[in-house]
């Protein structure tokens, strides 16, 4: 069965490029433009991995990660944060929110897909 990834970013370009990378890696991908939309999709559908930006309107990626962790059935679902913020304190905030991996933008296709494979086992 194809594994399902939710890509969350307020930039259409980033959403589309991350989607391209992950689809090229063999994953099925859905998109959301912010944390609120992402939570709605997560409550409706099942996803094996969430790849999210941090700075977004309505609900940022850190809050989204915390909400995912608190959602029934999603406590152990891997979350990859992809952000322009590259300092140690930013990464620390991401891990404290519950993210598994922190990738600094611009993400390379190989990094994103390799991390997805490591987290999902395929």
């Amino acid at each position, binding site marked *: 069965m194809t594994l399902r990834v939710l890509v969350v970013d307020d930039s259409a370009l980033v959403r*589309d490029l991350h989607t391209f990378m992950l689809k090229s890696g063999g994953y099925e991908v859905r998109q959301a433009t912010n944390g609120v939309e992402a939570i709605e999709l997560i409550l409706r559908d099942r996803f094996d991995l969430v790849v999210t930006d941090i*700075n977004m309107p309505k609900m*940022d990626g*850190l809050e989204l990660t915390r909400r995912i962790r608190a959602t029934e059935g999603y406590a152990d679902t891997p979350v990859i944060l992809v952000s*322009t913020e590259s300092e140690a*304190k*930013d990464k620390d*905030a991401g891990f404290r929110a519950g993210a598994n991996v922190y990738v600094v933008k*611009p993400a390379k296709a190989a990094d994103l897909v390799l991390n997805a494979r490591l987290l999902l086992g395929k």
Partner: protein
Amino acid sequence: MTPSLQDLVADLDNLDESIRRYAAEDLGFLKDPMSVEHLARLLRDPSVAVCEAAVDALVLIGGEPAARSVLPALESDDPRERNAACEVLRGVGVDAVDPIGEILDTASDDVKLFAIDVISALPGTNRSLELSRFLSDTNPNVVTSAVIALGQLGDSGATSALIQTLGSNSWVDCAIARSLGQIGGTEAIVTLCGLLNHSEEAVVYAAAQGLGECGDLRVVADLEALAVHSNPIVVSGAAEAVALINAKTLADHPDAPIFSGDHS
């Protein structure tokens, strides 16, 4: 009796969330620039409602003082505070341009990104010029944001600058491809057709999407040539672009010939 500025400012520190929120709202109606620094503090208030009231109040007060008061919040570790500052700057509008411009030379990359976000949403005619200065930035994320903003403006005056920026980073090249598609025109289309031979698959995919956005029937053959590309996602992206061109053509010229776009 109408409460004084001092009373309202004092209420901003009240432990009761509703009192802080009402005080922020009243300060907005009072429109006294003396209150902006106090209201800016509330962008990091633990209550979302208080923070939103402060944002609305600062936008109501407006002007350069309101814009300047939130600039330090762009450097905050808290994304909610940063987003609130951006919201104020966008709400303040053209009066935010000079204060933002004053900090750009010494700003961190993150602040530049927020500045681009704000500038691109402001009304006015000089946005392309303001945004183009970021195309030579050393950080690809800053360049990418400026490229995206220029594409959204759709100003053909930015086409040459975008084309000259190609080649520094494949991520930036993807953004340029999409923006050229939004701007359109012969120079953009010729460049996009050239990018269909790029060594990075993501750039080829973005160029195909850009050509789809242009909606020009003359590039259908170039897109159909991607049917033999080794990456099936590129193939389907090219087919989607052809479908988009056909849809745009049909909308403009109902009698035009339709290409299959079938790459299966």
